[in-house]
């Protein structure tokens, strides 16, 4: 039984879609209330740590897509990255925190909160990480936060 079959068997009841865009990438989309369950099943398959947590702002669909990339140190699994993604509403971006499933989500989730304003419920320290503590603008990685395009020199103000 290869990895694809294993994943399909394990996750077919909660995943909304499972895709294989590249040989080393498996993309699993779930609903936002099933994220914890899906993550636990992925850990049971052996993908025991995260490579990244990221948020993608999709203003047209009024959603923020939160993507988890899980990888493994095991020799038979390490060539593959499992991408788990879900969507949260843009004006109320709330999601369960996965630090109990993947401990190294601690800083990755905090950064996603910092950069996109996604609130991870149950995360113990949602504080500013990379931005200065007095930041009061909208989160900078959202698409409606505009920086000047190239070629125009801007002042500090």
């Amino acid at each position, binding site marked *: 039984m290869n990895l694809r079959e294993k994943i399909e068997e394990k996750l077919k009841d909660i995943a909304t879609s499972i895709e294989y*865009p*590249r040989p*080393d*990438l498996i*993309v699993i989309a779930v609903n936002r209330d099933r994220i914890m369950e899906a993550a*636990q099943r992925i850990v049971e398959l052996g993908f*025991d*740590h*995260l*490579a*990244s947590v*990221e948020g*993608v702002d999709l203003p047209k669909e009024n959603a923020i897509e939160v*993507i988890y*990339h899980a*990888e493994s*140190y095991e*020799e038979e699994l*390490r*060539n593959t*990255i499992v*991408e788990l993604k879900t969507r949260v509403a843009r004006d109320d971006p709330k999601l369960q925190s996965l*630090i*109990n*499933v*993947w*401990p*190294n989500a*601690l*800083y*990755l989730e905090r*950064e996603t909160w910092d*950069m996109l304003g996604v609130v991870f419920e149950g995360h*113990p320290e949602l504080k*500013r*990480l*990379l*931005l*200065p503590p007095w930041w009061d603008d909208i989160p*900078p*990685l959202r698409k409606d*936060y505009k*920086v000047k*395009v*190239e070629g125009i020199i801007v002042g500090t103000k």
Partner: protein
Amino acid sequence: MEQSSLTFRYKELERAWDGEKVYEVFIGPQHPASGHMRFIVRLDGDIIVNVEPDIGYVHRTMEKLAETKEYIKSIPLFERATIIDSNNITLGYVRALEKLLGIEVPPRARYLRTLLSEINRIASHLYGLGLAGIFINHSTMFMWGFGDREIWLQLAEELTGARLTHTYSIPGGVRSDLPQDFKDRALKAIRYMERRLKDYMKIFFNNPVTVARYKDIGILKKEDAKRLGIVGPNLRASGVRYDARLVEDYGAYREIDFEVPVREEGDALSRLLLRIDEIKISMDIIRQVLEKIPDGPILAEKYLRLIPPKLRKTMEETGRVKFPGLFASLRPPPGEATARVEMGHGEVFYHIISDGSPKPYRVRIVTPSFRNLLLLRYLPVGHRFMDFPAIYGSVDYFPPEADR
């Protein structure tokens, strides 16, 4: 689901210092030991009960800026994240871009990328070893590490034209060919470095003071390393054989015979000695690359065809790539791609989402230092205050890389 070790420790730490009398010491950002970050170290007597890394002092917003630039212009942007290891960090981006575009890289270019990657890795490890020396006030190791780094920077400069910011790997190939007599100079550098490594062992690693300061300090157990998702030499020093060079098919690593060094102890000294092992392996890889390197073009045929014949001729004569005009506005098809590349500090992860326009919709970088940041939080707890710089030095954390 069992409680993860980290969450458990997190709660334990909170209990340990919350409401008790602790002494708070701020290390950084202006500080001989910290560079560009701040640590809030909480002490109970001389014992560290909690370390809170406060990063973001070098956050230059690369992920946002990449969204405003055309694909090719982000390469120089990302190499500023880890300026001491710039080919490795941009190689991940270039690999992800090549996957999106569906380009095959010619063999000679793959070998050249490997060559520069290994030169960068040696330079990066020497930088880390030098810092590990100065963190216990061993100024000679610092100076030697940084001085011998110049040898490798010079080699890189001969190959690419720049000391640090090479911008060498571009989608489809590399920017310039091997200069004449490069092989001799590289072999000479390797012979010199092998001699110097023996000196390092004599004056630093076998020094009783160094052993006393680094041995059995900051032990990272194998299970903890796996749970915390640590990467790079810090992971391999804890006995996990994992290296992005084995995982991802990039460069010429599939055709080269090399072994990934692993150590079992997981303490600070083994983390440092592992870097010495890696320097040796890297020099071996460079030797093999220089022997096995095939002839051929250094840019993918797809782009080579776009260059006017006259320019192509000068390109063949000088060995330097003249960019085809198309490069300014590469348009990958909509989709996403990931890439992992082993840097000197560990594995860098890229995720690019393209919507078909000349600019990326989203670029996500997770750098090894950002993933290893957890170590600075969990390793020093329970050690003495003076162990903190030693642990920090052994982790080889590079703040601009973590903050991006």
